[in-house]
């Protein structure tokens, strides 16, 4: 075999490999599996205590909460409902995520009340 034939074949090979890599890349982009979790935030408007739970159908902001406040015994109210998009469980097992401390959120809410 001549060297230029090898060159020709190598060209073909390289372009094939490029096409395959691109195809795999596009597939991996599509396969970004993410899990949606719906969260309900319950709040005590007397002492600003908040707690979160999984959303249940029928929850809406302003509705009576499921819990009573552990600090003052007041009936809690649903204060927000939001979605949290997280990586699939597989990914979560591989990469440990650092969670934002809950105190930061509460601090922000108390700020509003003080003003």
């Amino acid at each position, binding site marked *: 075999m001549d060297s*230029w034939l090898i060159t*020709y074949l190598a060209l073909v090979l390289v372009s094939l490999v490029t096409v395959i890599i691109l195809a795999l890349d596009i597939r991996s982009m599509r396969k970004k599996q993410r899990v949606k979790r719906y*969260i309900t935030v319950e709040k005590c408007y007397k002492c600003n205590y908040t707690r979160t739970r999984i959303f249940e159908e029928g929850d*809406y902001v302003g509705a009576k909460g499921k819990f009573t406040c552990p600090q003052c015994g007041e009936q809690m109210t649903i204060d927000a*409902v939001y979605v949290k998009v997280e990586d699939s469980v597989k990914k979560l097992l591989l990469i440990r995520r650092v969670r934002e401390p809950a105190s930061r*959120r509460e601090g922000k809410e108390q700020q509003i009340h003080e*003003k």
Partner: protein
Amino acid sequence: MVTLSSMLDIVLYSVAYAAWPFDFLNSSSREGSSFAVWIIAISILVSTIISILAFLGIAQSMQLRVWKNQVESRLRIIESYLHETESIATNKLKKLGVERHEELVKRIKDFFLISPVSIEPIDIIKRLEQILRTGEKHIEKLVSEALPSNVGEPVRKNLTTILAIVNGLNTLYKYLRHLLLLGVKTRNAMLVAQVWMLIPFYLRIAKAYRDAAETIAKGLPIGDSAGPLAAYKLSRIAKPLSRIEEIAEDTVYGVYELERRRVVIIKAKGPGSTVGRPGEAVEKLIKREDIARGLSAIITVDAALKFEGEETGITAEGVGVAMGDPGPEKIRIERIAARLRVPLYAVAIKMGLEEAITAMSENVVKGVEDAINRVLNLIKERTMPGDTVIVIGVGNTIGISQYPTA
């Protein structure tokens, strides 16, 4: 990049020795390479033929075929979104015990609005409003007539919105299909190219619509609910002076005391899916002497489209009416402000299009807290104690009720 550069090396290498095959063609003395010579010769022939054909316009029609195939595959995705949304609607209707659900979906699916004559601008807002309200009422009536009487208002309103989404997706799908088929039929490569270039955006919108239907079926707040959520949270930190009252259709207001000012908070009536009529509500409220006299600011809080690259949930303040309606509601508030010489302040909570119509994200909830701070600052800085301020939480109030409950 590694593959690219090595590819380049090989290309350069083969270009440097490009004379080889012709060398071989001349000297038949060398053996063992005739197979390779044939490959090269045939590929040169093929590329010559293709380039000649390109001059005859064959290339364009080949390109047209490629575009057509790609548009078709994306259209199939949009169609599947349409079917999914339809099945969400029919499942919900079946669950509620509606027998002729297919007929209802079919009827609303092809519903259309004709925009008013615009070359004559006089009273166009009134005419537009008339058309929009008739459309709204018509669909609402169709739904409520089909549903059993024991179904609650929120469920009915959410269902109406889902059916409106089916209508939107159907219109989008049919329009794109029309452009494609027209382009292919008239062999207009440029028309097909336009559809091909735009279809990724429409695909995004279609996907957002499908997700929106899912979200609304669950009764979850969407990104657009940021305005009503801000209104609700503001009413929670203020001292209520009255009960909540419905002043315009699907629109409620309450009077509160906040920072020694009288604050009138307006929002759509939740927790069903509706945007209410905030413009009409302000118009009616202003007729009340006690509100019109001391009025010193109108503040609107609304979700706004962010620029790509901006973070979701950041807030910004400005002037004007923050409202995404086609015009009738917004113009009412502008007219009142101009007549009474009341400043209009706006607070925007930024998010992407998909985020605006699908479930509210945590960042938006944080943005709402920020927006409330901005509203409080505006009230403190721009008004005096004893003044009256109107705050409007603009947007769809799905999943958000009001305080104190009526």
